[in-house]
C-alpha cells in the first residue's frame, strides 16, 4: 500500500469521513468466528468418550456372554476319551441282540417304538403337570439308564395313586420310560409315602456307562427349560420433562482491586442480583437410554447416553449499550466490553424476552436400588453422575454492573458435571417394566468459567417416565 502524498481535497474528505464511520456486526458474526477459530484446536472429547463407551460395553458383553455355555465346560483329555471309547465298546458288546441295529430297524420294533413314543408323549404331558422334575428320555432308553424300576412297581394303579387326577397310558415292561436317579428316588419316596408297597428294589445297573456329554446336554436343556430367565443385562429408555431453575452468586472478588469503575456495587447482595435478573423457568427435556447390569438382586449399575434441552427465559429490554464485564485473572483486574442490544431495565414498550436454551449431551453413570419389589408394583431409587457436554453456547449473561445482558459464549463452560436423583414407581408388564417418578438434577460447576465473577448454578425438577426390559 503506497500512501499518496498528494491527495486532493475530495480524496482527503472521503478518507476523513470514512474513517469516522463505524458499524456494529450482529452477534452471529462473532459466534461463527469463534466457532471456526476454536474448532481448530478443540479436543475430540465426544469421539473419545463414545469410543471408550463402545469398547467398554463390547468387552463387558464378550466377557459375560454366554454365561452358561455348557459346551465350554466339557473338557476333553486323552485319558478320559480313551476310557469313554472303551466303555462304549463294552456297551456295544454287552448289548443284547435285539438292541443291535438290524433288530432295531425290524418292522416289529419300529411299530413298538411308535407306540412307545405316543405313550411317552402322553406320559410327558402328565409329568409336566406335576411339580416333580421328571425327565423322560425317549430314545435308546436302556443304554442311557443308570437304574431301572421294577415292573411290578410302576403299574398304572401305582402311578394313579400318586397322580390321582391324571390319565396315564398303559405301559408294558418293554415300554417303560427310564428316569434318572434323582427322579426315581423321588418317585420311590412318594410311592412309599403313599403306602403302596410294590416297590421292591431299585437296583443300579453295572457296566452301563452314561455319556457325560449327553448328561451335560440334557442337564443344560433341563436347566434351560425349568430355570426362570435370569438375565443380568437390561436396557431402558426414558424421557424426563423438566423445569430449569437457577441461582446467581456474585463473588465480588473484583472489589479487592482499586479500580473503582469496575468495582461491584457493594450495597448489592446476591438476593438483589437475583431480583435484578428476572428469569422464568421454562420447560426442558431429557431423553436417553441406559444399559443396566444387575450387581445383586436389588442393586443395578447403569450407564448410557442422554440428550438434554435446558432453558429459562429472562425478562429484558431492548436498549443499545456496552456491557462491561470485570474479569479477575492472574491476580489482575481486567474488563471486557461487549456491545449489546439488551438491558436489565428500560421502558416497557421495549420489553423483550431472552431465551437461554442449551442443548447438551450427557453420559449418566449411576446405581439403582430396588427398595421394594412386589409382584407387580415396585419402588426404586437411583442416583447418577453425568459428565455433560454442551453443544451450543449462545446464552446471555448479565454484565458485572447488572445493567446489560451480553452474549456470554466467551465465558461459557463446555464441560460440566450434573448429579441426578430419582425415585421411581414401577409396574411390571408381561415382558417389561414401566416406571415413573420425580427427578432432581443439579449442576455442580457454574455455567460460566472462573473468569466470569457471577456464578450461575442450575437445578432441574422433572418427572421421569421410562420402560425397562431385559436383553
Amino acid at each position, binding site marked *: 500500500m*503506497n500512501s499518496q502524498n498528494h491527495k486532493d481535497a475530495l480524496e482527503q474528505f472521503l478518507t476523513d469521513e*470514512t474513517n469516522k*464511520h463505524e458499524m456494529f456486526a450482529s452477534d452471529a458474526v462473532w459466534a461463527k468466528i469463534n466457532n471456526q477459530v476454536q474448532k481448530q484446536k478443540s479436543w475430540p472429547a465426544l469421539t473419545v468418550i463414545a469410543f471408550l463407551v463402545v469398547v467398554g460395553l463390547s468387552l463387558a458383553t464378550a466377557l459375560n456372554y454366554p454365561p452358561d455355555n455348557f459346551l465350554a465346560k466339557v473338557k476333553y483329555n486323552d485319558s478320559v476319551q480313551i476310557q469313554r471309547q472303551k466303555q462304549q465298546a463294552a456297551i456295544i458288546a454287552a448289548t443284547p441282540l435285539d438292541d443291535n441295529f438290524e433288530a432295531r430297524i425290524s418292522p416289529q420294533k419300529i411299530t413298538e417304538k411308535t407306540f412307545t413314543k405316543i405313550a411317552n408323549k402322553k406320559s410327558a404331558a402328565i409329568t409336566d403337570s406335576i411339580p416333580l422334575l421328571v425327565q423322560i428320555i425317549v430314545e435308546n432308553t436302556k443304554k442311557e439308564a443308570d437304574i431301572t424300576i421294577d415292573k411290578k412297581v410302576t403299574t398304572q394303579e401305582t402311578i394313579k395313586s400318586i397322580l390321582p387326577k391324571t390319565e396315564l397310558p398303559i405301559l408294558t415292561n418293554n415300554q417303560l420310560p427310564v428316569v434318572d436317579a434323582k427322579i426315581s428316588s423321588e418317585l420311590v419316596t412318594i410311592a412309599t409315602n403313599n403306602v403302596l408297597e410294590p416297590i421292591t428294589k431299585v437296583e443300579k445297573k453295572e457296566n452301563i456307562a452314561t455319556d457325560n456329554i449327553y448328561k451335560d446336554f440334557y442337564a443344560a436343556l433341563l436347566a434351560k427349560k425349568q430355570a426362570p430367565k435370569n438375565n443380568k443385562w437390561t436396557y431402558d429408555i426414558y424421557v424426563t420433562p423438566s423445569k430449569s431453575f437457577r441461582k446467581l452468586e456474585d463473588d465480588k472478588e473484583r472489589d479487592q482491586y482499586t479500580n473503582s469503575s469496575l468495582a461491584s456495587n457493594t450495597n448489592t447482595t446476591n438476593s438483589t442480583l437475583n431480583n435484578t435478573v428476572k428469569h422464568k423457568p421454562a420447560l426442558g427435556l431429557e431423553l436417553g437410554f441406559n444399559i443396566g447390569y444387575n450387581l445383586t438382586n436389588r442393586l443395578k449399575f447403569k450407564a448410557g447416553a442422554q440428550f438434554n434441552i435446558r432453558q429459562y427465559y429472562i425478562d429484558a429490554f431492548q436498549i443499545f449499550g456496552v456491557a462491561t464485564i470485570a474479569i479477575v*485473572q492472574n491476580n489482575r483486574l481486567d474488563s*471486557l466490553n461487549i456491545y449489546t442490544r439488551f438491558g436489565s431495565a428500560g421502558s416497557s414498550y421495549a420489553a423483550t424476552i431472552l431465551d437461554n436454551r442449551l442443548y447438551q449431551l450427557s453420559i449418566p453413570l449411576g446405581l439403582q436400588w430396588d427398595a421394594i419389589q412386589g409382584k407387580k408394583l415396585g419402588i426404586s431409587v437411583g442416583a447418577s453422575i453425568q459428565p455433560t457436554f454442551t453443544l451450543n453456547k449462545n446464552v446471555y449473561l448479565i454484565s458485572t454492573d447488572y445493567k446489560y445482558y451480553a452474549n456470554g459464549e466467551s465465558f461459557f463452560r463446555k464441560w460440566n458435571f450434573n448429579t441426578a436423583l430419582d425415585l421411581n414407581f414401577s409396574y411390571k408388564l408381561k415382558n417389561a417394566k414401566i416406571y415413573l417418578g420425580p427427578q432432581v438434577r443439579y449442576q455442580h460447576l457454574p455455567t460460566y468459567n472462573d473468569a466470569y465473577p457471577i456464578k450461575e448454578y442450575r437445578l432441574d425438577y422433572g418427572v421421569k417416565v421410562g420402560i425397562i426390559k431385559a436383553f
Partner: protein
Amino acid sequence: MTEQNLIQGCLQSDVLAQRELYNHYSPKMLSVCYRFAQHREDAEDMLQEAFIKIFTQMHTFQNKGAFEGWIRRIVVHTCINFLKKYKKFNEHTDIDYANTLFVKEETIPSIMQAKQVVECIRLLPMGYRTVLNLYAIEGFSHKEVGEMLEIGESTSRSQYTRAKAMLENILVTKRIIDNPKPEFNWMATIRNK
C-alpha cells in the same frame, strides 16, 4: 488490555483476548467491508472471513508497522477476494448502471455525514466503487489496484476518474459538499476582459 497484551493473548488462543480484539476493531473493519460489499450480509461475511484469517495468521504479524494497518490490509484483501470469488463486479453492468443512476436531492444533517458519505460511495457501480475505495481511501496505487483487480493500470485510472466525477456529483446533489466548479459566468468574463 493493551494492544501488546491482546496480541499475546490471541497468539495463545485466549478466547477473551480474541473477543476483546474483535470488539475493538470490528466496528471500523465492518465499515470497510460495507464500502466494498453489495449488502450488509455480504459485509458481515467478509468481516467473518477476515477475522478468522487474522486470528489464524496472527503469528505472521511482525510488529513492524501499525497493528491496525495489518488488520486493515487483511480485511481489504479479503473483501477483494470475496468480490472476485462471487463475481460481484462486472464492468459492463457497472457502466449501464452508472448511466441510469439518479440521485435524489436532499439535505443531510452534519451529524450523519460520515454515514451518508459511505452510503454515497455505495451508490456507485461496483467496479467504480472498488477502484475508488482502493485508490482514494485505502491508499493503493493504480498499479497495485490493477494487479489486485486483474485489470490494466490505465483501466484503473480511467475508472477512478469516472468514479470520482460521479461521486462528486452525488455528494453535491445530496448537499454534502459544495459544488467545486462554480457555474460559468460569461458576463463576468466579458467584464474582466
